[in-house]
C-alpha cells in the first residue's frame, strides 16, 4: 500500500479495478489497444497489467513517433548533415535512433554538426543567429507537435528567414488506427484513445472507428485512474454491444480540439498520398508534407533528399511488435542484441516505445513503481 497517497483518489482506483473485474465476462477475451506511447509507458510503470483480470489484454499501439519512423527517413535526414554548410537540429528523442550509418548522435561524434533543440522555434532562432549556414529542423511527431512546427515555418516566412527549412516527418494517428483495423492478423475489441494528440484534433476524427468499424474508443488521460476509468468505459460499451467515442479526459481534451492549432497545420501542410511506417508498410494519407506555399522552407525540396528505403535488420521484429501481433519479449533480438543501451530498433530507444518500457519494467524485474495491484 505504499505510495497510495500520491494518487488522486485511491478509493476510486479500487472501485475502478472492481468494476473492471465485474464487467469482464470470464467467457470472453477483451483485447484493448492503447494507441499512445505515453499510455504504454504508464501501463508498464504502474504495473496495470497486474490489476486487470487475465482476460483483459492491453495491446500496445503505434503511437510513438520515434518508433514508427522507418530507417530510410533517418538516413534521409542524416544525408543533409553530411553537408558542411548545414546544421541539422532534432529533438533529443531522435538522437539515439539508429540509421544504417549510425544514429544522429554518432554522426555528431564523427564531426557532423547535429544539435539538439527542444523547440522548433529555437531551430529557427539558430538559423537567424547563423546567417551563413542553413539550419534544417528534423520534425517528428503526431498532431501534438505538428502545430508548433507549422507556426515556426509561418514565422520563418513572415520574417523572411531563408536559411531555415524543415524535414517534415509529421504523422497522423487516425490512418494508423485504420491500418490496424484493416490488418488481417489484428483483432482489437476497443481503443484507449490518445490523450495529448486529442487536445489538438479533438474527438470527432475518431467517430468513424465507432460508426464504420464498430469499435468503441475512449480518449483517456495518463494517470492510473484515468486509464482504468477508460477501460471501464470501454468494457461498459462492449457489455451493451455499443460502439461510441467517449472522452474520459475532459479536463484536457475539448471535443472539437484546438481550432487555432488545426488552422496552422492546414496553412502549412498537406496530406501525403502515402507514407511508410516502420513495420506497417505504406499507409495512405497518414502523414503531412509541406505545401507549395512553403516550398522554400521544405528541406526535402531544397536538398534533394534521396528518399531511401531501408529494410529493418532481418531478425528485428519491430513491425510485428508495433502492430501488437508480438509482445516485445517474443522478438528474437529482445534483451540480447537489442537493449536500451544498444538499441537495434527504435522501440527500444524511446521511453514511450513498448520494447523499452517492457525491458525496463518487466524484463529487469524492477517492480512497478507503484504497487497498484495491492491497492486494487
Amino acid at each position, binding site marked *: 500500500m505504499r505510495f497510495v497517497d500520491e494518487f488522486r483518489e485511491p478509493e476510486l482506483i479500487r472501485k475502478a479495478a472492481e468494476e473492471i473485474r465485474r464487467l469482464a465476462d470470464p467467457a470472453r477475451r477483451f483485447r484493448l489497444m492503447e494507441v499512445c506511447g505515453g499510455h504504454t509507458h504508464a501501463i508498464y510503470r504502474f504495473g496495470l497489467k497486474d490489476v486487470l483480470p487475465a482476460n483483459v489484454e492491453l495491446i500496445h499501439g503505434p503511437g510513438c513517433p520515434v518508433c514508427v519512423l522507418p530507417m530510410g527517413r533517418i538516413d534521409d535526414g542524416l544525408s543533409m548533415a553530411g553537408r558542411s554548410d548545414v546544421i541539422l537540429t532534432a529533438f533529443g528523442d531522435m538522437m539515439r535512433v539508429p540509421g544504417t550509418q549510425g544514429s544522429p548522435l554518432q554522426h555528431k561524434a564523427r564531426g557532423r554538426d547535429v544539435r539538439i533543440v527542444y523547440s522548433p522555434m529555437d531551430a529557427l532562432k539558430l538559423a537567424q543567429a547563423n546567417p551563413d549556414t542553413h539550419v534544417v529542423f528534423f520534425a517528428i511527431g503526431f498532431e501534438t507537435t505538428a502545430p508548433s512546427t507549422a507556426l515556426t515555418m509561418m514565422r520563418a516566412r513572415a520574417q523572411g528567414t531563408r536559411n531555415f527549412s524543415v524535414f517534415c516527418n509529421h504523422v497522423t494517428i487516425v490512418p494508423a488506427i485504420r491500418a490496424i483495423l484493416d490488418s488481417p492478423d489484428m483483432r482489437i475489441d476497443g481503443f484507449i484513445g490518445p490523450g495529448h494528440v486529442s487536445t489538438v484534433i479533438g474527438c470527432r476524427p475518431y467517430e468513424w472507428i465507432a460508426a464504420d468499424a464498430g469499435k468503441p474508443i475512449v480518449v483517456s488521460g*495518463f494517470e492510473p485512474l484515468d486509464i482504468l476509468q477508460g477501460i471501464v468505459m470501454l468494457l461498459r460499451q462492449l457489455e451493451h454491444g455499443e460502439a461510441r467515442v467517449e472522452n474520459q479526459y475532459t479536463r484536457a481534451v475539448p471535443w472539437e480540439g484546438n481550432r487555432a492549432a488545426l488552422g496552422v497545420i492546414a496553412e502549412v501542410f498537406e496530406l501525403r498520398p502515402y507514407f511508410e511506417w516502420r513495420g506497417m508498410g505504406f499507409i495512405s494519407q497518414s502523414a503531412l508534407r509541406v505545401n507549395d506555399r512553403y516550398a522554400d522552407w521544405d528541406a526535402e525540396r531544397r536538398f534533394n533528399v534521396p528518399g531511401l528505403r531501408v529494410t529493418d535488420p532481418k531478425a528485428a521484429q519491430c513491425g510485428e511488435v508495433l502492430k501488437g501481433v508480438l509482445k516485445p519479449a517474443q522478438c528474437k533480438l529482445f534483451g540480447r542484441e537489442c537493449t536500451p543501451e544498444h538499441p537495434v530498433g527504435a522501440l527500444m530507444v524511446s521511453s514511450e516505445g513498448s520494447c523499452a518500457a517492457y525491458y525496463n519494467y518487466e524484463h529487469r524485474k524492477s517492480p512497478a513503481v507503484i504497487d497498484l495491484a495491492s491497492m486494487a
Partner: protein
Amino acid sequence: MCLAIPGKIVEILPGEYRSAVVEVAGVRRRVELGLIEDEHPAPGDWVLIHVGFAMSKISEQDAIDQMRMLALLGESEAAIEEVRGYSQ
C-alpha cells in the same frame, strides 16, 4: 515530447508575436503563445506546454495534477530539462 508540461505565465512579452515568460518548477523560459491566442492568456494563467508552445489553458489544480503525473511517470526531470533547453 508527447507528455505536456504544465507552467505558469509570469509575464507576457512585448513584440509582434505573442510569447510569455513561463515558470515550470522554478525554471523560467520563453514559451510561444500563438496557438492559444483565442484563450487570451494572461499573467497568472496556467498552460500546458509541448516543445516550447503553450497548447491549452488549464486550471491550477489540473497543473498540479499534471506535474504529479509527470513525477509518477518518472518524467519530471526530463520535463524540466526540456524547459531548461528552451531559449531565454
